[in-house]
């Protein structure tokens, strides 16, 4: 009986409750990354914001003289 009590004290001491980070850390990380990539892929491609990218390698020159 005394041995069991000792064991109980030991286990109560060693087994620390899982923290918020242990329980939800991975979910928060993946959720945050997903939200970030979704929003910014929309902003960068669909939103028609003029980012001012360089014409080099992108624009095909066309005649300007009338």
């Amino acid at each position, binding site marked *: 009986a005394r041995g069991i009590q000792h064991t109980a004290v030991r286990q109560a001491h060693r087994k620390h409750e899982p923290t918020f*980070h242990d329980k939800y*850390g991975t979910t928060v990380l993946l959720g945050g990354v997903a939200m970030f990539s979704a929003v910014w892929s929309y902003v960068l491609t669909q*939103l028609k914001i003029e980012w001012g990218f360089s014409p080099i390698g992108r624009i095909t*020159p066309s005649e300007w003289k009338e």
Partner: protein
Amino acid sequence: MLASRVFSLVGRRSISTSLCLRAHGHGVVKAEDYTLPAYVDRRDVPLPEVAFVRDLSAQQQALKEKEKASWSALSVDEKVELYRIKFNETYAEMNKGTNEWKTILGGVFFFLGFTGIILIWQKHFMYGPIPHTFSEDWLSAQTKRMLDMRVNPVEGISAQWDFDKNEWKK
């Protein structure tokens, strides 16, 4: 006897209040917890000033008595219990990493994403239409004119255009 002589000479009121209090055991202020030596789990403090467990249970007190005899008589469990009385966490437990970085990084990405949402709101509700000089036709004509003028021929736009093959340099 000498004291009573002084007593009668000087009168009753001369005995100081603090002496009276001290006689009744009220003279000393009770030491607050924060003024006493404290236990701490730190890598650079291997032997803290006090043991972790301050008030021992009856079982623990019996164990402490047993500790006074030969240590080879102690079982492994008893030795561990003695350790746990003296210390809170082992070095391994103290130094153990956590999963905190996941929450932090997740939060950072979330708020960066929120910034993107602000941009969406701005584009939708705030910005007007972009100038016509950003249309595809205008940009192509503009680029050709810049190349014809040899704008920035050393390291800039004209340096990136192959005038012989009529294409951007690879």
